[in-house]
């Protein structure tokens, strides 16, 4: 293990081997395939959408004014305003992925920064930071997010920030524990004795060891983020209509779930697939990148 610190710069054999191993797992491959499709849908949304997702079409409603079930004309049916559900779901992919990646990116950054600072320096700084982390852990995440979303006027960025504010905690705990163990190892002591500054030690010698955990928990975290965004939007305090998000599509149409179930279950399936893919991928990454945990979780 000690030798690894010295060759942190060389292409990391554990990651290449891990990636190769990853592609031998059917679950991970399937998850990666779903994610690629979703990313493609999000990027190429304007090319894929058969209709304007916000157009309320006359022919999109039955003569009685009810939404239409899936058909050749409207592949996934229409919603209660006569809008094409497929087009709205495709554009919703964008919302979910953007918030998932941005919110989780911020959460990972904040969590890692707090965890590393507290773990490396310890003492009263570490004490204060970790007590604050404990405090945030005791807050019911969803309720806290709702309160925050109610205080600030919801926009895409605010929703992402709110989710990040409640989601950095797990990452901080994991990184804190690992940094703490690393900071007491001999090769770090040696660096300190040689006069390297804390920034250099953290950047060169601690961070490379944390990369695996950051990748694994970062991937699993996107799943939590996607679910939280969907839930906030479903409760009406997340992404605001007419911007389509899978959660607010369900929010808008849920009263019709008995007569037009596709309006609830198709967006629901999309949320499930996205969250499930990140969970499966994160789990496979944990197995391949960290052999110590193999088969234990």
């Amino acid at each position: 293990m000690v030798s690894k610190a010295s060759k942190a710069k060389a292409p990391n054999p554990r990651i290449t081997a891990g990636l190769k191993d990853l592609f031998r797992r059917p679950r991970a491959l399937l998850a990666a395939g779903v994610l690629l499709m979703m990313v493609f849908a999000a990027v190429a949304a304007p090319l894929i959408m058969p209709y304007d997702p916000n157009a309320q079409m006359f022919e999109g409603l039955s003569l009685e004014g009810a939404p239409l079930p899936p058909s050749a004309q409207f592949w996934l049916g229409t919603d209660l305003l006569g809008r094409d559900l497929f087009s709205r779901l495709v554009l919703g992919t964008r919302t979910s992925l953007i918030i998932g990646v941005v919110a989780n990116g911020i959460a990972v950054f904040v969590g890692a920064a707090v965890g590393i600072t507290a773990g490396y320096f310890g003492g009263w700084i570490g004490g204060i930071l970790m007590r604050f982390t404990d405090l945030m852990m005791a807050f019911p995440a969803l309720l806290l997010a709702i309160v925050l979303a109610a205080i600030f006027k919801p926009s895409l960025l605010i929703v992402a920030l709110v989710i990040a504010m409640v989601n950095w905690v797990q990452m901080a705990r994991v990184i804190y524990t690992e940094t703490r163990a690393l900071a007491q190892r001999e090769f770090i002591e040696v660096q300190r004795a040689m006069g390297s500054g804390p920034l250099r030690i953290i950047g060169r010698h601690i961070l490379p060891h944390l990369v695996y955990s950051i990748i694994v928990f970062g991937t699993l975290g996107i799943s939590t983020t996607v679910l939280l965004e969907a839930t906030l939007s479903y409760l009406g305090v997340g992404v605001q209509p007419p911007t389509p998000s899978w959660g607010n599509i369900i929010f808008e149409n849920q009263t019709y779930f008995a007569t037009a179930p596709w309006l609830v279950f198709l967006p629901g399936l999309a949320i499930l697939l996205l969250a499930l893919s990140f969970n499966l991928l994160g789990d496979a990454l944990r197995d391949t990148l960290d052999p110590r945990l193999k088969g234990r979780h």
Partner: protein
Amino acid sequence: MWGYLFRRLMQSLLILLGISLVTFVLLYLVPADPARQIAGRSATAETVANIRAQLGLDQPFYVQYGRYLGNLLQGDLGRSYLQRTEVSTLIWARMPATLLLMLGAIVAELVMGLTIGAVAALKRNTPIDQSLMVFSFVTISAPQFVVGILLLYVFAVRLGWFPIGGYGTFAHLVLPALTIGLLGTGWYSRMMRSSMIDVLAHDYVRTARAKGLGKLRIVTRHVVPNAILPIIAMIGIDIGMFMSGIVVVESVFGWPGIGQLAWQAIQRVDIPIIMGVTLISACFIVLGNLLADIIAPLVDPRIKLK
């Protein structure tokens, strides 16, 4: 043991104090002026100023927090802006429904989770194990409101086995408890599986086998009881997960608990109620974690007290 208990109790109290501070800061930050909301749209500036003074909103931050904390210690969570009632009264009236749902959910997730985990461990690395583990991933990846609506659609609307929502009989409890329980099932089955695998590798299991005990007897008498030990403490931590789910699930099923109360308050931006529910939920989580830390070393003497 007593020293450890005392330290953990003090830590929990400190966390609760911190939570009250964070809640108050959030309340303080709310741009909506409670005085204006209470007085109504047509009130004069003078009336609003009077109400502000009456509520003490014109005093500095620390004075307001001091009073808030004092009120909290007496069980006073403030007044609802719109319902003109004490928040604590509203919450206590709805607590039994939420506690009942919690009990139902815990029973559901333990029964399903432990069974699935045990079967998966016994059939380790077979297609059965793999499908059960994929199922556990599905349950933790599915948004609870979709699961709730799906169960409603299939078992209430289509099959008519259960009522479409509401409260009162055992039949009303089944679907909401299942909805919350399914999320927990995912976590418990994965923990149970890995705990069972650990226990199955122990010498005493091999000895029992060598003695010629039947497989069923070994599993029910020796493996399952030992595998469950580390999981019991998780029930406490589980309360936190439960608290996050009640807002959604209670509103989907029209369950008259504190989650529905919070959801109605969200629609009307009735901040004191949302804050009250948040604070009570946080207390539950702290209490649950404390319970977990106390129970864990009791049921499993290998865990050292720190």
